[in-house]
């Protein structure tokens, strides 16, 4: 009898620990089955259209999360709605670790005062320009001589 209770206690602790652990992947959360793409309403399909091809491969937890986001979408401004849909597919393609790290950075970013937030956005543009320049320089041949576009390597010899 006490064994039964001890077994139940261990089972309960295991279930509780699994739920309490900070998941790097949402796959550990037990979620009831969520609708397939075909079962979504027309409105849900319209909102979640960037995920149309991936939807049936998403686990139930992620489907439930996206359905909750689709509900919030209705209360967003048209600009926010466009931004959300533009980023939706790329976001879903990230690895769970990348999404986790991005959420942490966004939380930090969100706590910044407005002027600092603007500064970070400007810095991002600056960083992108530097990166692009670096890539262009790497793509150029060593020595800095540019090969004319119509010259083949054989012709240059």
């Amino acid at each position, binding site marked *: *009898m*006490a064994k*039964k*209770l001890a*077994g*139940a*206690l261990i*089972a*309960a*602790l295991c*279930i*509780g620990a*699994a*739920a*309490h652990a900070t*998941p790097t992947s*949402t796959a550990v*959360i*037990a*979620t009831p089955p969520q609708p397939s793409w075909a079962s979504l309403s027309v409105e849900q399909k319209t909102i979640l259209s960037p995920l149309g091809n991936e939807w049936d491969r998403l686990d139930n*937890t992620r489907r*439930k*999360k*996206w359905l*909750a*986001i689709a509900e*919030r*979408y209705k209360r*967003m401004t048209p600009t*926010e*709605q466009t*931004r*959300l849909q533009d*980023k*939706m597919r*790329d*976001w879903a393609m*990230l690895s769970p670790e*990348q999404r986790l*790290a*991005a*959420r942490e*950075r*966004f*939380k930090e*970013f*969100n706590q910044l005062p407005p002027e600092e*937030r603007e500064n*970070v*956005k400007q*810095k*991002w543009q*600056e*960083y992108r320009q530097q990166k692009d320049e670096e890539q262009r320089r790497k793509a150029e041949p060593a020595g800095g001589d540019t090969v004319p576009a119509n010259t083949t390597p054989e012709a240059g010899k």
Partner: protein
Amino acid sequence: MNELHFAFRVRQHLNQSLQQIDDDKLARLKAAREAALSAQKAPATVPSLASAGHYLRFNFDSRGLRFSLAALALVLAAALYVHWQGDKLIAELSDIDSALLSDDVPMEALVDKDFNEWLKNSQER
């Protein structure tokens, strides 16, 4: 002497003997009889539902069933907690994801690990 006659003679003898019992012995016999009658419990009628309740109570009282119920309640409570935690986590994720994706901060700026380092270095400069 047939049987009936014998019974009659016994009765007659007992009646005669009864007349010969002393008053104090009679009083003691009477008191003992009354005490026995008052101690006797009145037979109670037991309704069928009470019988069912008694059966359940008897079984509930048994330790095995109590342990099983406690174990079941524990697992059920854990399952409910997991369900509640899952819902809470999904709500948190949808909160932050919808805010992140609808914000004008480029998603790449949040994903690019090098940018974070570059930003720190550029602020130190």
